[in-house]
């Protein structure tokens, strides 16, 4: 946060002073928040990162922020195959560890938020779902893909609740958003997705809490990508997400403190 503040101050100073200061002053190098910044973020962060980026743009007029959403697994695969990305915000920590193992991330990731899982059903709860156990009697349940974080978390929830679903009743969305959409717009009776997604869609689905004994704690990690062409911006954005201002935005979307 401190460095971020300093960065803004330096931008102001440079803006008003001589242009050649940029060559001499090392702080000036750090402060120039210009150019592109591509943030790859888990699909469950779509709404909150759109808001965070909006705020970041407002504070840093020179920086061009682009957002790339997808399932964390997809984002990891994209980054490993060399897609240009400056920051990864993932829905778990193991995915970032994969990037550490392949050398795409060299800085220790920071945990910036926590999330839990919840059940989403159609408005009015026509199938009278009250608990994870009730899911077994439904016709179709939407879960995320087995290998993406929200699918892994959903499996944990089912295991902890001692519920096993027949695979022929499980439709798998390609990410958290599309999984929820199978309930909101399609014919799935229920979904297990992030609580924040259920909150964001409260106009079209009804959320049912999962007791903490059965629930999991999803930890969201953020880290700069090694080959980023704009490491300064990447770090500034990460600092912003970790700042008090960033936290207030995260909180307003239902995320919990790590």
């Amino acid at each position: 946060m401190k460095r971020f503040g300093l960065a803004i101050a330096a931008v102001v100073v440079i803006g008003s002073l001589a242009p050649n200061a940029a060559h001499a002053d090392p702080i000036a190098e750090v402060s120039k928040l210009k150019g592109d910044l591509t943030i790859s973020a888990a699909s469950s962060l779509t709404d909150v990162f759109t808001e965070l980026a909006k705020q970041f743009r407002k504070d840093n007029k020179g920086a061009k922020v682009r957002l790339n959403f997808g399932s964390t697994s997809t984002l990891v695969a994209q980054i490993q195959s060399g897609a240009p990305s400056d920051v990864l915000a993932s829905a778990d920590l193991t995915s970032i560890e994969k990037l550490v193992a392949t050398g795409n991330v060299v800085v220790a990731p920071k945990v910036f938020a926590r999330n839990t899982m919840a059940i989403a059903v159609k408005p009015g709860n026509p199938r009278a779902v009250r608990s994870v156990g009730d899911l077994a009697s439904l016709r179709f349940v939407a879960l995320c893909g087995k290998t993406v974080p929200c699918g892994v978390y959903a499996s944990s929830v089912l295991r902890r609740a001692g519920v096993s679903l027949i695979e022929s009743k499980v439709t798998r969305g390609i990410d958290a958003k599309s999984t929820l959409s199978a309930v909101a717009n399609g014919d799935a009776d229920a979904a297990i997705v992030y609580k924040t997604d259920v909150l964001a869609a409260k106009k079209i689905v009804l959320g049912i809490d999962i007791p903490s004994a059965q629930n999991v704690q999803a930890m969201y990690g953020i880290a700069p990508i090694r080959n980023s062409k704009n490491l300064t911006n990447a770090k500034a954005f990460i600092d912003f997400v970790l700042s008090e201002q960033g936290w207030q935005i995260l909180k307003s979307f239902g995320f919990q403190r790590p």
Partner: protein
Amino acid sequence: MSARGRQIGAETPKFVWVGAMLALLFLSLPLVGLLKRVAWTGVFASVTSGPASEALRLSLITSVFATAIAFILGLPLAWVLARIEFRGRSIVRALVMLPMVLPPVVGGVALLGAYGKSHGLIGGLLYDVFGIQLTFSPLGVVVAEAFVALPFLVMAVESGLRSIDPRYEESAATMGSGPSERFWKVTLRLLSPSLIAGVAVAWARALGEFGATITFAGNIEGRTQTTPLAVYLLLESDPEAAYALSFVLLAVCVAVLIAMRGSWLGRRS
């Protein structure tokens, strides 16, 4: 053929050649990239095991049914569009072509709007009266695939019908054959190249369907998870199997193109 090629080439400006070469490179490079990633020794094992083989089996069955529906419904529609003058024909044709240009996901959303059990126009009726639920069922996959494949068949057959010299049918009529007999013995025979092309391209399109399928029929292993869906999901958990499946789809499409030679590719004179 080669002599004619040279003759035309002499009049062709250099930049056209360069552009054509670049276009060819642009199209072929990704295919080379795909082939390079395929682990050849494991293709058979990847494709014949677990979810991959189930997806292939499901794809094969659903795409054949979808093509059959496209054929049964598409042939009469193509006939009407090609042979009958009526007001608003161009509007009807535009409507038929719409699924060709529509993003498939939008097609899936539209199908939900019509046949979804909870929100669809007639989906609830289908379920209450006939007990049919298309969403999350293999039948739903067939519907999604037929929806996107039908226009391709109609377009191919319509252009084929237009290119038939009407004198053949007229002379058959003067020789005393009725409309049905003329259709089966004359028109259908003359139409067969475009019919084969239409069926082939509709089948390839049905086989490759992704967006409408996952949106409308869902993604249930062994039930609605077709090969393209499996490729997408396996890319993250088992890339080798994903590349093997991709190769199978590529090989099938090449076979389709070979089957279509003479109708759309080049001319058999």
